[in-house]
Structure formats: structure tokens, C-alpha cells
């Protein structure tokens, strides 16, 4: 059982480190190769979001044990401008940073649980969970 670990997201290099750490834990806890790829891809999108939209943030990576199946939970937090309209932000193709608008909506499709809490001026917290099958 590994303790939760927190990683900073302040540079492009940090996004790579987040991907590698998530990959390592996902493999260790026995996620299938496809599920590993999905959670790492979601982690990459959400880490980049924190960097691009909020100028940086952090991620808490936690292996959930004790339930019927183990899970991998990632909590991305930033103190950026926040999202005024969360519903709109979760709409297909919606984008502010000139991207494809896939970061949030795409990540949501890649995980089992997705939770977004945000308000203008109060930053953003995105929690995603992938359960082993």
C-alpha cells in the first residue's frame, strides 16, 4: 500500500513527471494496459489544463484500497481564475485556450468517475477515478 503523493504542476516537464508517476502506479495496482493508457492520458490533459489555464497547480495521486476493487484517484487543484460556467466547460468542443476543447470532456470519457468543482476567483479542482476491473 502506497501513501498518497502530491506532485507540483509548474512546468511542461512536470506534466511529463505526472504522466510517468500515474503510469507507474496504474501498472503497480494492476490496471489493464488500456485502462493504464486511459488514466495516463486523462492525467496529461488535466495537468496541462492546470498549467495553461491557471499557470500551474498540483495533483494528489492516491491508490484506493479496501473496497471491492482497487482504484486510482487523481485530484488536480489550481488557484487559477476558475470556471464561470462549469456546464459550458464540459460541453463538447468548448475551449478558451485555443485548444481542441478535448481536455475536460475527453478526460471525463476516459475515467470511471469525474468531479469538477470551480468558481470564478476560487480556482478549480478536478477529481478523477479509475477502478480496476
Amino acid at each position, binding site marked *: 500500500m502506497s501513501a498518497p503523493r502530491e506532485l507540483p504542476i509548474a512546468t511542461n516537464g512536470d506534466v511529463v513527471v505526472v504522466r510517468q508517476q500515474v503510469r507507474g502506479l496504474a501498472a503497480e495496482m494492476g490496471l489493464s494496459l*488500456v485502462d493504464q*493508457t486511459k488514466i495516463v492520458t486523462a492525467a*496529461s490533459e488535466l495537468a*496541462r489544463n492546470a498549467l495553461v489555464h491557471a499557470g500551474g497547480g498540483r495533483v494528489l495521486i492516491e491508490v484506493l484500497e479496501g473496497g471491492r476493487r482497487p482504484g486510482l484517484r487523481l485530484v488536480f487543484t489550481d488557484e487559477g481564475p476558475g470556471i464561470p460556467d462549469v456546464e459550458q466547460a464540459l460541453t463538447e468542443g468548448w475551449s478558451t485556450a485555443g*485548444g*481542441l476543447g*478535448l481536455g475536460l470532456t475527453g478526460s471525463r*470519457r*476516459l475515467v470511471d468517475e469525474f468531479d469538477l468543482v470551480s468558481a470564478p476567483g476560487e480556482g478549480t479542482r478536478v477529481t478523477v477515478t479509475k477502478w480496476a476491473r
Partner: protein
Amino acid sequence: MERVPILKLGDILIVSIQVDLDDQSVLALQEDLADTVVSSGARGVIIDITAVEIVDSFIGRMFSTIAAMTRMLDAETVVVGMRPAVAITLVELGLSLGGVRTALNLEKGVAMLQHVRGTAG
């Protein structure tokens, strides 16, 4: 920043991505490729992603950008070696890589480029 080597074989450029690229390195690769296509007069570009474990929206967009860019410079791009888990994830993410040619491996990528040029005269 990682610099990805660009190899030249005849009139084809081959790029094999072997490391986990950060976004800056991805942008640098785009620029290096455009320069090299022009300076070498290459007619084809092969991007080998056999070793790439994930393709997110940023890298996916790089493939589309490189394909469009090289086409304007009179060269075709083929992405080869995509892992099955990567293909599944890309589709669920919502990226279909429209406009990007793909082949299963390097050999088929080379054959595809030769065929494209054959039919184009």
C-alpha cells in the same frame, strides 16, 4: 528539452519518438521537421510511435499539424506503429486524427508513401 533526431533515407524523413515528450519538445519537433523537409527536399515523412505509450490531444494535434504542414511543402506524412491501447484511448478522447495517414509499421509506411507518389505521378 528533448530534441528528436530526424533521419533521412532517400527522399523520406524518419522520426522515431523514443521518449516521453513535453509540449515544448513537441513544438520544436514540428519546426525542425518543416525546416528539414524544405532543406532536404524530402517527399515523405514517417513518424514512428511504436515506443509511445500515450497520445493526448496535444500530441494528436501535432500529428495533424505536421501532416497539413508537410503537405503544403510537397511531402506526405504517415504515422506508424500506433499501439492498440493508444488507438482505443484516442477515439474515446474524441480525436480521430482526420487527415493523418497511418500504417501499422515502418515497412507499410514506406510502401504507402511509394504508392502515394506512384499514383500522384
